[in-house]
């Protein structure tokens, strides 16, 4: 492919162009074209010209749309037609300034409005859900048992291996670190106390909630969001069903049921992990471990952890479903809302957990 060539004839004020004028063959010529006053365009030597080439040629001859059109000289007829076609549209292609970038203050303001919008949206969503629940109480036949079963399967059964694995490893790490400190004071057996308290009260509920937010919360938003994009939600509404009853309530209840169970599984896994370490590191046999466990564990420790789970579950489910339903009809917003679900859920989990911690201390639990 021969490149485009151009030179400027100062005497005539003529831009004499030749060669192949395509979008990419033209690049070496561009700098030569800048800043000249062109009265005549000579295209006798041009062998190929497409719309991109024609526009670039015109732009060179006429930097602003308001500048007078140069005279076209000795173009081939179809090249001339191409130039005239492009010239018709040249007014719209003037470079427009980009909107100015936003400052920190504007971004902060916008961010605050977004957070406020989420809070209001969540409260509104809870209200609508509550009305829907009242409706469902009146007509128990409308409960979606099958959907509920499928959701419990997805949320609970599918999550067991990862919850077990994570908490087992956390139990190992926790017992190991605690053990290496306790050993210095000969307080080996108290590792069991510490492990129990940490895993059951804090680690298991929070880690399970984080896992569920990432695993199930994101999945719920992506699924409901994609249904929104493909108009399935609209179809559900026009069939006289309520998307809240069909999609949201089964998911909320499934999470509500699954989370305490997952936390309980997490408790067991964490203790087993700790047990494996104490046996190796601290010479506490499984028998001694279990004896101590029975001595120090009371129901309260277990319940404190397990009772947090439903609260986390409600937050995760509500946030995930609401973000799913507020997807607009494009792929980008599915991604944005899924991200937002995970972020909002994690923030909610941490805030709620902090509130619980303060509350339990004040209540001497």
């Amino acid at each position, binding site marked *: 492919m021969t490149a485009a060539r151009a030179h400027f004839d100062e005497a005539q004020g003529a831009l004499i162009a030749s060669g192949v004028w*395509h*979008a*990419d063959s*033209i*690049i070496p010529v561009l700098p030569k074209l800048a800043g000249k006053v062109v009265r005549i365009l000579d295209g006798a030597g041009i062998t190929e010209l*497409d*719309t*991109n*080439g024609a*526009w*670039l040629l015109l*732009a060179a001859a006429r930097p602003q749309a308001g500048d007078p059109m140069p005279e076209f000289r000795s173009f081939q007829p*179809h090249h001339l*037609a*191409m130039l005239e*076609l*492009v010239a018709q*549209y*040249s007014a*719209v*292609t*003037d*470079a427009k300034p980009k909107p100015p970038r936003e400052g920190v203050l504007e971004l902060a303001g916008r961010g605050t409005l977004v957070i406020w919008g989420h809070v209001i949206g969540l409260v509104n969503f809870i209200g609508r859900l509550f009305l829907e629940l009242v409706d469902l109480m009146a007509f128990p036949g409308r409960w979606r048992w099958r959907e509920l079963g499928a959701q419990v399967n997805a949320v609970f059964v599918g999550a067991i291996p990862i919850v077990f694995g994570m908490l087992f490893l956390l139990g190992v790490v926790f017992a190991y670190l605690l053990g290496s400190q306790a050993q210095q004071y000969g307080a080996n057996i108290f590792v069991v106390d510490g492990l129990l308290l940490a895993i059951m009260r804090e680690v298991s509920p929070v880690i399970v909630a984080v896992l569920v937010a990432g695993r199930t919360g994101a999945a719920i938003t992506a699924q409901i969001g994609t249904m929104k994009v493909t108009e399935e939600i609209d179809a559900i509404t026009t069939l006289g069903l309520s998307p809240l009853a069909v999609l949201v309530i089964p998911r909320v209840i499934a999470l509500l049921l699954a989370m305490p169970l997952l936390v309980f599984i997490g408790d067991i896994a964490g203790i087993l992990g700790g047990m494996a370490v104490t046996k190796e590191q601290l010479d506490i046999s499984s028998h001694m471990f279990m004896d101590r466990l029975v001595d120090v564990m009371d129901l309260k420790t277990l319940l404190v952890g397990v009772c947090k789970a439903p609260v986390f579950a409600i937050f995760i489910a509500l946030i995930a479903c609401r973000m799913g339903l507020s997807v*607009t*009809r*494009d*792929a*980008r917003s599915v991604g944005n809302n899924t991200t937002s679900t995970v972020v909002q859920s994690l923030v909610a989990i941490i805030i709620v957990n902090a509130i619980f911690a303060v509350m339990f201390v004040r209540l001497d639990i």
Partner: protein
Amino acid sequence: MAESVIEVHDVSIKLGGYSIHRGLSLSVARGEVIALIGGSGSGKSVLLREIIGLVKPQGGRIKLFGKSVWDSTPAQMNSLRRRFGVLFQDGALFSSLSVEDNVATPLFEHTELPRVTCRQLARLKLAMVGLPPDAARKRPSELSGGMRKRVALARALALDPELLFLDEPTSGLDPISGRAFDALIRLLADSLGLTVFLVTHDLDTLFSIIDRVIVLSDGRVLGSGTLAELKQIDDLWLREYFAARPTEGETLYGN
């Protein structure tokens, strides 16, 4: 006869155990506006995807501009891709980019022009397909179906291809937008010297802007020619197909 831009020779493919094409051959000359028709499941879209290098046929040869599609190196294939544009059925616009950037993307990727110039060229293309200037900064999701098709057409035209593939360009458009889109395609084909290969179900498109029609049936080319020539072919599907168009002032069903 002018040089042939698309050459399909003896192509066969099986998908999911079904034979879709059995020794299919066709060719398209430079400057023609060709429509590919055929019943549902006759493999029109598969053929289109074979020609543009998305689905590999199990037998036969496909050439674009005299170069084999499936024996090219990736670099050769890329330079071939710059010479044709594709309009997908639902537009396939990138929802994360503005309309203007959608059209400018091929220019960003395949030329070394400055970004500002690419965007200006994109606005030229948008104006050529008849979109108002204020559409350029919008997102694809803010446009109507007909406008999205026009944006997709502008993107297909971004690199000034010699050959344009259109997959059901008027499906999902109301009759008025559909006819306007047909007229636009013909206008661009004539003024830019394009070769157009379109897959369609739309009889009105066939009757208004097409030079030659190729009919697919049973994995082969049943016939090709002008509409008048096709009407001579004695084939059940083809007769029903042409009969499906009610003539003026008459409805098929109802009163």
